[in-house]
């Protein structure tokens, strides 16, 4: 359904997207995972015809976004990161406007608006001004506004930013429903748990480059069955701990990040007694200790040396 080949987009001399390639099959829920500034929104901008690529090719439904943008626009719906709604109008009027913009009218428009209000769980709030809505309600309306013309492909650009856990959960359920209905979805996020929960396949993007691509299991498999142990001890003992740790069986590597020691181990549970003994022998105070199983965060950390919550440089 979507083919992206060697996509390049520059802002001045800087490449915001640098040679990105991926495919998305019809009905697939594809996640684009990366921190703020990684190039996710720019990629969506090009795919949705709003931005012109400086290189590469993008085809959606067989249409080239550069040469047949109108045909592409008929196929796609876009839900921007911002609440792209008229908050001074009510929910219904917003949907009616976006529907008319896409050529709907009369009974068909009214029917579609009612369907979407129900889908967003806003049927009883249809006449309320959007500015009086909670963040979650706005997000749901923002999302269904992108569905008004029943697109075949939906681009969701960080649709859960700035809302609480409960509201986020409802949005994710809504998106999962859409996926089950066969809609092709490209979902950008910097929340790895969302990508893990929702997406069939995930592309990890960093500094404009796609650094990993695959389903969740295969991506995690790339880093092997390695646990991550984080511990906080006084800085003057880091060197001694590193030297000792590298000698213990099961230790794959030791590093330091944000003032904490990070130990990669084949089995974190086996290494913990060694750590405890070393601390007690040296009288070293332990301020914090965490053990993490392999996940997309560790993958991302391995690939980029940074966490997903950190801004791209």
């Amino acid at each position, binding site marked *: 359904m979507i083919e992206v080949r060697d996509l390049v987009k520059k802002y001045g001399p800087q490449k915001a997207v640098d040679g990105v390639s991926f495919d998305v099959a019809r009905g697939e829920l594809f996640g684009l995972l990366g921190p703020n500034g990684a190039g996710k929104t720019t990629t969506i901008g090009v795919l949705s015809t709003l931005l012109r690529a400086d290189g590469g090719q993008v085809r959606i439904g067989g249409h080239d976004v550069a040469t047949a943008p109108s045909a592409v*626009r008929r196929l796609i719906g876009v839900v921007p990161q911002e609440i792209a*709604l008229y908050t001074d*109008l009510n929910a219904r009027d917003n949907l009616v406007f976006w529907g008319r913009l896409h050529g709907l009218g009369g009974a068909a428009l009214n029917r579609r608006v009612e369907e979407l209000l129900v889908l967003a769980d806003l049927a009883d709030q249809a006449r309320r001004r959007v500015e009086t809505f909670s963040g979650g309600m706005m997000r749901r309306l923002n999302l269904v506004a992108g569905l008004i013309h029943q697109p075949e492909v939906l681009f969701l650009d960080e649709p859960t930013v700035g809302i609480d856990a409960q509201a986020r959960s409802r949005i994710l359920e809504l998106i999962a429903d859409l996926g089950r209905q066969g809609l092709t979805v490209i979902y950008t996020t910097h929340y790895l748990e969302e990508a893990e929960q929702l997406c069939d396949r995930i592309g990890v993007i960093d500094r404009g480059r796609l650094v990993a691509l695959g389903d969740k299991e295969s991506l995690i498999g790339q880093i092997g069955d390695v646990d991550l142990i984080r511990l906080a001890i006084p800085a003057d003992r880091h060197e001694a701990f590193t030297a000792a740790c590298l000698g213990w069986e099961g230790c794959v590597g030791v590093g330091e990040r944000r003032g904490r020691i990070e130990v990669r181990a084949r089995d974190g549970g086996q290494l913990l007694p060694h750590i405890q003994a070393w601390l007690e022998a040296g009288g070293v105070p332990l301020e914090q200790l965490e053990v993490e199983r392999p996940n997309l965060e560790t993958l991302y950390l391995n690939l980029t040396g940074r966490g997903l919550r950190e801004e791209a440089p």
Partner: protein
Amino acid sequence: MSRLWIFAARDLRRLAADRRALVVNLALPLVLTSVMGLSFGGGIFGKKGISAIPVAIVAADLPEPLRERLLEGLRESGFFAPTWADSAQADALVRAGDVAAAIVLPSGALDSFFNADSLVIEVWKDPASDVKAGIVQEIVQRGVLRLQAGEAAYRALWPQDVVLAAADSVALADMFRGGLGDLWRNLRDPDTAGTQARAVDFLARQIDHHLALGRVLSRPTVGLVVADRVPGAGNGGRETNLFDYFLPSFAVFFLMFAVAAGARDLHRERARRTLQRQLLGPGPAWPVVAGKWVAAVIQGVGMLGVLLLAGAVLFRVNLGPDPWTLPVVVLLTCTAAAGVFMLMALLVRTEKALDNLSTAVILVSAMLGGNFMPLDNLPAWSRSVGQLFFNYWANLSFTRVIGADGSLVDVATPLLVLGIGSLVLLAAVLVLFDARVRKGGWT
């Protein structure tokens, strides 16, 4: 429903839902213009205006027929409510605030005038009545200038034998025999009493001729032209009223703010990403901005329409000689205003930059284009520069229609400027917006 109308209807719906915008765009201008109307216009609350400006006239040695003629002329001018007074009375009246000003012709004024000697006319102003007294002073100054110009032309172009030939009786001719200076002496001679009235009438016509020549020779800069307000000279004797000028000029001033707010919405939509969402719809990009332009025009027409109708109902403001001239002026004023501010919105990068630019443009163009002061009272350089701004032509059109009951023919030139300007501006807006979208600058 065409895409253009979808966008325009959306903006109008949002405007109607915005109570604050309604207050700022309609209620506030209505209140302010009503205050002005009550100050200058009177209307259903009682007639005031310039016609009610009380002035004292001091001209001790004018003969009675000439004095009556002068008072009658001042009343007919439509600007003054004159009172005859001697010097002391006039001083007291001004100080007491009973008159806005006193116009003082010194003793021997006409002797001086006819003998081409130095003549100084004084205007004593009531400082507490700054506006009205200033208007009196302005009118007197214009009159003096015209008399001076007419005097020179009269003496150069009007040979004495023509004057004598015009006098249709021997007695009357005798009064002119020694020239203009002798006429004045003869007017005070009891022996010529029988012909004095006719002589005064003739003299008055000669002074009108002075003024007419002066008008030809002097630059047409007079705002409140006395001769234009004489009954039968164009407006059927309707009283001239400052409110007739300031109602539309203030309405245009407020219109600029309203349209600037509409243009600013383009930047807000861009920041909120609703603009980008619209650009994802099928079809070309231009209806997005054209729809905003249409909405701004409709908003402006509504705003000006309500203000002018309120002025007509409450303050008897003249709405022109026919039902179509003023609506055309209103429409073209709004199309030009919408074009100007939409173009400015596309020329700047941010909403804040647009705010700064539009505020500066509004204030400067209002000053130079005659929104704060009648066009005719602006200095020549200001009128020249003001022609660069649409509001100059709008104010000129309104002045001619509302102030002088002008028809479409009378406002053809300013309407042509507004019409052509509107088309050029709209074309520039559409081209620039399309270029911005294509380059991704607005996405």
